[in-house]
């Protein structure tokens, strides 16, 4: 992914190069023309000088001497017929010293010395166009380099200074979590667009938080309201059960109603618990030994495990102690434990161990990995177990989120493995 800075740099550099490339021929032709015009002017000036100062006084016998000392203003015999007269033309001459063909601007002109016709040739050496191009290229490269350098630093400056409020906002949104219920405080900036962005974000987050709150309140109210009818339902069943006239068939019905009400109660309690965790109603923390909690609950779960003849192995390598709410960590471990028992198989096993800041619970079960994308979701059950409320692992996840712990699931060697890192 490209950073905004890099993108800007690339665009600027491309434009600079293209503009420079396009302007190069134009500059070259302009310079060349200017130069030629200047040279032509000088030739004309010399021609005028010759007409005015030399032509009247020069003798024919002086011509060889003249020609010997004037390389570029020479008097030639009137035999040069092929050259156009009185027009400055471009011609190459061999430079005998180098030796190299050099471009010249040349003027041929008819003159008369002591009444005899001669041809005057005035020439001026031009810079080779190769040299000119080379010079221009070097200058351009220099300009390009300086330009890119300037663009780079300006973009860097803009990115850091101008875009600072944007990056600040970005960072705050990244850190924002709906569970924390903390409205991010955006910095006020002098830039309209950023202010607009911050304002829109604030509004959006406020609305989200509001509906999240409403949802939490709704769940809590709903489960609260359910308590009383559930209590009545339960007590009616308790009364019905006392009826000694009930036949086996009716008892069966009462029994299944009883199971249903038990499950309803469990779901309701778990929903309430989730709502309470979300509402941060477990704030008191103390130093908790994980080992103690595990040792405390093992008798209960051993009882639960008897039915399936499950063996529980514990290996508590260190006395892991963490700072947290006692109720929550107990619920967390109970849920993981219960999960391992509930979804276990006949003659299965459970391995519990702590190592460093890691608590792992491994259990046998169905021989296929669970869908990791949904196991921690509410009411998403990994199994068809009718006793399961589908909330146990959601509660585990919620407690982990609240405390900044990491919970992971792995399927290894046919075993289901939950790893909790404090």
């Amino acid at each position: 992914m490209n950073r905004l800075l890099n993108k800007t740099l690339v665009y600027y550099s491309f434009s600079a190069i293209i503009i420079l490339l396009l302007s190069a021929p134009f500059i070259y032709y302009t310079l060349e023309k200017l130069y030629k015009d200047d040279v032509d002017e000088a030739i004309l000036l010399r021609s005028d000088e010759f007409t005015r100062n030399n032509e009247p006084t020069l003798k024919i016998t002086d011509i060889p001497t003249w020609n010997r000392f004037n390389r570029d203003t020479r008097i030639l015999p009137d035999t040069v017929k092929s050259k156009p007269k009185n027009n400055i033309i471009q011609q190459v001459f061999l430079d005998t010293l180098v030796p190299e063909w050099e471009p010249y601007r040349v003027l041929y002109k008819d003159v008369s010395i002591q009444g005899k016709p001669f041809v005057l040739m005035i020439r001026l050496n031009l810079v080779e166009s190769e040299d000119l191009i080379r010079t221009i290229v070097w200058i351009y490269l220099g300009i390009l380099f300086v330009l890119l350098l300037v663009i780079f630093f300006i973009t860097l400056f803009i990115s850091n200074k101008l875009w600072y409020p944007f990056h600040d906002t970005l960072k705050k949104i990244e850190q924002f979590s709906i569970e924390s219920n903390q409205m991010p405080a955006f910095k006020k900036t002098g830039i309209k667009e950023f202010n607009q962005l911050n304002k829109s974000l604030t509004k959006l987050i406020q609305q989200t938080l509001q509906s999240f709150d409403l949802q939490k309140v709704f769940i809590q109210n709903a489960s609260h309201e359910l308590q009383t009818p559930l209590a009545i339902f339960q007590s009616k069943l308790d009364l019905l059960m006392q009826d000694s006239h009930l036949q086996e068939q009716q008892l069966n019905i009462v029994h299944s109603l009883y199971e249903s009400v038990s499950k309803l109660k469990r779901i309701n309690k778990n929903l309430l618990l989730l709502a309470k965790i979300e509402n941060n109603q477990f704030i008191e923390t103390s130093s908790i030994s994980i080992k103690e909690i595990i040792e405390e609950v093992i008798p209960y779960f051993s009882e639960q495990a008897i039915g399936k003849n499950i063996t529980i192995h514990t290996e508590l390598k260190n006395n892991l102690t963490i700072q947290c709410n006692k109720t929550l960590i107990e619920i967390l471990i109970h849920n993981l434990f219960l999960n391992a028992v509930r979804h276990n198989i006949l003659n299965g096993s459970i391995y519990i161990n702590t190592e460093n800041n890691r608590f792992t619970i491994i259990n046998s079960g169905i021989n296929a990995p669970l869908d990791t994308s949904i196991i921690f979701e509410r009411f998403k059950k990994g199994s068809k177990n009718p006793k399961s409320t589908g909330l146990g692992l959601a509660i585990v996840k919620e407690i982990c989120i609240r405390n900044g712990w990491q919970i992971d699931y792995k399927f290894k060697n046919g075993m289901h493995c939950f790893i909790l890192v404090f």
Partner: protein
Amino acid sequence: MKILIIEDEQELANNIATYLKEQNYQCELALNYHEAVLKIEIYEYDCILLDLMLPDGEGLQLLEILRNQSKQHGIIIISAKNTVEAKITGLQLGADDYLAKPFHLSELGARIFSVIRRNHFGSSNHIHLNELEIDLLAKTAKVKEHTVPLTKKEFDLLLFLIGNKNKTISKAALAEHLSGDMADMLDNYDFVYSHIKNLKKKLAEAGCNDYIKTTYGMGYKWES
């Protein structure tokens, strides 16, 4: 034994009353604050069941009135609020016990039984049931002067059964009673069976008659 049920949910109050009447308790209902105040001031009760969540929070006021009376009644709060804080507050304000809704009637029966025992019999708290003698303070059971070696859970179970004499108690209620805070999560009540089996065996070995009966598929009953 007289019990006052202060509960604004009439249906629930009736159910509680029906259950307790069969236990030979005399029950009276108070469906709102004023009825409750009236009855508290005139009559004497052995145990008062108080719903703290009466409208307008009057439950707490009632608790205060009850505390200021120097009567010898036990108070059990029944509330839809199931938090440690609510329990502590209730107990600090003078309640003897706190039961969160929804509850099993058998659980309520057992709690009333123990609150009344505690209030009436103070230091020498012994229950005699035919050949069985239970010391509530020492938490021991004896049959014809021989101590029955019960575990804590088995003793709890025994008390629970006796507290709901001649009532069928569901396995779920027993399981929840035995597992306390963990109860909300347990879904396998099979362990109740093994505890009952052990209890029956130990009582029989000590020479006690078999009073614990199994109700088909549902639960257990102490018949005597």
